């Protein structure tokens, strides 16, 4: 910014040509507000949409060339990759369910029984684990879940089991544990965000009408918080299928998901296949968001005016 304009006191309007050009009423500054939009379109929307185009390109030795072939899709659906993909979807769905059962009651509890002023602070606690490197958090589960890990030691020490349990890690269970540990905070955040639009007197009304806790949850709270639950569900489900780190570090030799498949395709320089899998993920995400929107109007979550 230009210096001289400030010398005559702060209230004086800027007047040098340079500052006019940058910050004046008709200056270039006006267009600065479009910068984030342009950035997102150039480096997010365009590349993500181009995956659809690249996925039908012809594969060459080290790269790809324009063409129109469903070879990459045939390769994906006609091989063990598709079975692995379905298995990843299943384990991801289980993770969503576990995260819901463990996490959503927290959101309800904070909204219904914590004083209004302290609610955000209680929810903020869940940012802590989320702010630590994902890689470290997942790697750190290894010494916890292993055969001679902390969890088995504790279980044996407490006399609950006699021999160490080995299904906690390098198994599909390990992947689910890793996913729940990583994504549970999202269920709490989104659940709470949706619960914020539920007035607190609802809990009293339900109580006065003699409904028990479970019925209140099932018939009143969950339907009201549905957009939030759905947002968290989509998030956890998609990341469960997509993030390769968790099966890579906690899954056994056969643990594969879409992320691993993309990674392998890229190391094999099969770019159309990698892009086809990315495009499939994108389509699944869009489909889920559209279904969610059609069912519950997800924009309610984002737009306070609609609450």
């Amino acid at each position, binding site marked *: *910014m230009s210096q001289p304009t400030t010398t005559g006191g*702060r*209230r004086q*309007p800027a007047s040098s040509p340079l500052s006019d050009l*940058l*910050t004046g*009423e008709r200056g270039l500054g006006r267009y600065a*507000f479009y910068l*984030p*939009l342009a*950035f997102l379109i150039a*480096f*997010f*929307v365009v*590349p*993500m949409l*181009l*995956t659809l185009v690249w996925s039908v390109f012809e594969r060459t030795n080290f*790269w790809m060339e324009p063409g129109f072939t469903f070879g990459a899709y045939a390769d994906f659906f006609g091989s063990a990759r598709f079975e692995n993909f379905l298995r990843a979807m299943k384990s991801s769905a289980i993770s969503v369910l576990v995260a819901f059962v*463990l996490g959503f*009651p*927290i959101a309800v*509890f904070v909204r*219904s*029984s914590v004083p209004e002023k302290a609610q955000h602070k209680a929810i903020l*606690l869940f940012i802590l*684990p989320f*702010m*630590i*490197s*994902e*890689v*470290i*958090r997942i*790697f*750190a*589960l290894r*010494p*916890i879940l292993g055969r*001679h890990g902390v969890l088995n030691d504790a279980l044996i020490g407490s006399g609950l089991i006699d021999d160490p349990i080995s299904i906690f890690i390098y198994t599909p269970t390990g992947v689910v544990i890793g996913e729940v*540990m990583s994504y549970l905070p999202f269920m709490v955040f989104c659940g709470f965000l949706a619960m914020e639009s539920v007035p607190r007197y609802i*809990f*009293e009304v339900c*109580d006065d009408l003699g409904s028990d806790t479970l019925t209140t949850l099932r018939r009143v709270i969950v339907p009201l918080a549905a957009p939030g639950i759905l947002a968290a569900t989509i998030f956890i489900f*998609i990341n469960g*299928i*997509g*993030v*390769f*780190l968790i099966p890579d570090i906690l899954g056994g030799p056969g643990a594969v998901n879409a*992320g691993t498949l993309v*990674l392998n395709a*890229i190391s094999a320089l099969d770019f159309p296949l*990698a*892009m086809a*899998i990315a495009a499939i*993920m994108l389509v699944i*995400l869009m489909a889920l968001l559209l279904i969610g929107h059609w069912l519950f109007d997800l*924009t309610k979550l*984002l737009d306070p005016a609609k609450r």
Partner: protein
Amino acid sequence: MMREYGNPWAHRAKWLYLIFVVVALMSPVLHTVTISFNEHGFGAADYDFTLVYYFDLFRNEEILAALGWTFWLAFVVVVVTLPMGILSAKFYQTTRWKVPFLLLMLAPLFIPADIMAAALLVYFKTLSRFFSDTFGLEWFDLSMTTAVIGQVLWCLPYVFVVVLVTMARYHAEQTEAARICGATAWRAFWDVEFPQIKAGVFSATAFTVILSFNEYTRTNFLKGGFETFPTYIVSYMLNTGMTPETYAMSGLVSMTSIVIVGAVLLLALRKEQA
């Protein structure tokens, strides 16, 4: 649910559960940090406090170089993301297309890191081929720039949300008043609005530093010929498994994040009480 006023133990049990879940989510990291200070490493019966593994880290040239790159990257990402976050929050306030814009801003959070990184990788390779074939330029070769773009996409939604929440508390009439008194739009923002949203910008900065510092997948795909601390740790862990050195590295990363988040939360709480 109001019944719990009659039964305080149910209320306490729920609080206990909440705390338990937070501690459980943190436990792997806390465990790692504890072990990183143990002279005998993982699984030893004795516990002797030592800093020797940390001193070893700071004598390792590769780690120092990786740390340097990580901080430099985080710095550039902050410098790029913060103004963009503020601009996007401003844009959101004035645009008629609020919901589509919001969806676009938040969309990068919903796409798994490796899927987005793979798409960006192929995109940058295409662009780089195009620029070198047509103009002989080295634009969009995998480098610091591409890593920064990948990380900005990751951090921008967070900065946007944090700044937007803070801006919502600002009364826009003050800007109008400043403009009527003759201030330019820029001066009205910098002298009137910015001091009031400083707290949000500050926490957004802290979060960007942490997010950039911890980011692995996108950086690993898009970086040029350098290692950042997370990519170094992961390749080291995948090669050698959990050794005292990896515990110390994990401890260092985790404690850095915990200190930054803790400081931000404390400052925010103190501000609220003041």
